[in-house]
């Protein structure tokens, strides 16, 4: 237990230090929406075969803590076992690193997301993933969710595109 606690503290310290040491341009205060294509498998602990799962999600989020934390919703549809179902639930995204482009700004970020999703066929998913955000246009992610109701794991990869417009700063001079 104490070993787990030490690892937890170490991870927390590294997260906090990585957040505070960067000058901030990623995760500005904004409303942002992504559309994500995902696919992967549902694995069971018993001998049942793994099932393919794939789908499409829309993820609107709002910055809760500028340069650090976003929160929002996930809503989508997925295909598995010859059925199409829906899922939805809350999500938060926590920035852990920012990729600097010299003095010019930032090229992207690395963030984790945690979410809880309810499926239309009794799925109860809790989990999250790690996301590589490139140029605020494209996100590549890996995720793992535990369906604690149906006792299985969802392991997936995804690619998301920002579909919301980026708000540009107001300029009060003629240009």
């Amino acid at each position: 237990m104490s070993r787990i606690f030490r690892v937890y503290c170490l991870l927390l310290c590294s997260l906090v230090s990585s957040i505070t040491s960067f000058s901030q341009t990623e995760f500005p205060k904004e409303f942002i929406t992504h559309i994500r294509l995902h696919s992967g498998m549902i694995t069971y602990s018993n001998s049942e075969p793994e099932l393919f799962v794939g789908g499409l999600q829309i993820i609107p989020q709002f910055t809760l803590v500028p340069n650090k934390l976003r929160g929002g919703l996930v809503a989508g549809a997925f295909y598995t076992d010859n059925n199409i179902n829906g899922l939805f639930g809350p999500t938060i995204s926590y920035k852990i690193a920012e990729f600097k482009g010299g003095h010019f700004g930032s090229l992207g970020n690395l963030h984790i997301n945690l979410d809880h999703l309810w499926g239309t066929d009794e799925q109860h998913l809790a989990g999250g993933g790690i996301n590589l955000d490139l140029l605020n246009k494209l996100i590549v992610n890996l995720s793992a969710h535990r369906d604690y109701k149906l006792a299985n794991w969802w392991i997936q990869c995804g690619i998301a595109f920002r579909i919301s417009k980026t708000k540009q700063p107001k300029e009060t001079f003629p240009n």
Partner: protein
Amino acid sequence: MKRALVISGGGSKGAFAVGILQRLRILFPTLHFDMIIGTSTGALIAPLAAAGQLDLLEELYTTNTTDKVVTKHRIGDRLNQRSIYSVEPLWQLIKKYITDAHYNNILQTNTHIYLNTTCLQTQETVVYTTNPAPKFSPNYAIKTTKDGEHMRLAVLGSACQPVFMTPIKIDLNYANGKEKEFQYVDGGVREYAGIQMAIDQGANEIFCILLAPESREVEGKQYESLFPILERTISMFSEDVEKNDILIPQIHRKTLRYLQSVKQKMLNDGISQNQIDEYFKIDGVSNPLEASDNLRLYLIRPEASLGGGPGGLVFDPTEMKAMVNTGRDAAQDFIAKLDPRDVTWIV
């Protein structure tokens, strides 16, 4: 004697020029400039220097951080914009520090300011001046500012390094036709230091403050990735423009000195002044140096790099305070090395 102050571009390194001006003011309170020519950060300094607001200049150049000058963004968000940074903070600073009262004050002094910009449409240097009757030159366009806002826009345009900072439509409300849509960027693209411009405008004693050292430092480090290479390239571009700007006036000055030495030697050998003048009169060929006899050019520059990041785009108050002090010391050294016979400005 018509005296000019020329201040080159260099972003945050303008703090060095502020230190020089402060020390010159203390040492020579009556030192007067008939014209102040500024490029980029020099254009930001010129109006306040002409209005005698050196304390404001020190505040401007020692208290503002980079985010109070430009706003950085996610680079991906700016790919279809006019610049990587947004410059609204700089515009707010210019409006705060350079007021209409300052503009009116400049008009009442007998110091004219000249602000160098580069027009993206015509590709030529365009100079905005408070002089109602400037001398025209085939080498650049020259326009008289209409009011304080027009001058502030010219300052902003002169300071905006293209790609990084937004091109400015300086004449949107001050011209007609196509011209009002013209976009202007940093004058340093074409002219880093306006020495030749000062000569063209009739100056024969020029104080030129340059913000980069004469000798380049040899770096031991390797440039391994895109952005550091890009930053280094930007610095090299501006330094190259600077070298070219200084080279021609220096050749001009050396040629004048050489000719004066030849004439003196002829006089010493017993040739009369009239005869010498006759030798230098060539039918059908005018003397290109006639208008700039007795040109004095004083260069004041740092001995080592001042810092301030690529193109002076990093505004660090601690570093800029050190630049102000370096400027004060440089002014002191400059005065100490002057030949007392050259000091024409003590009344």
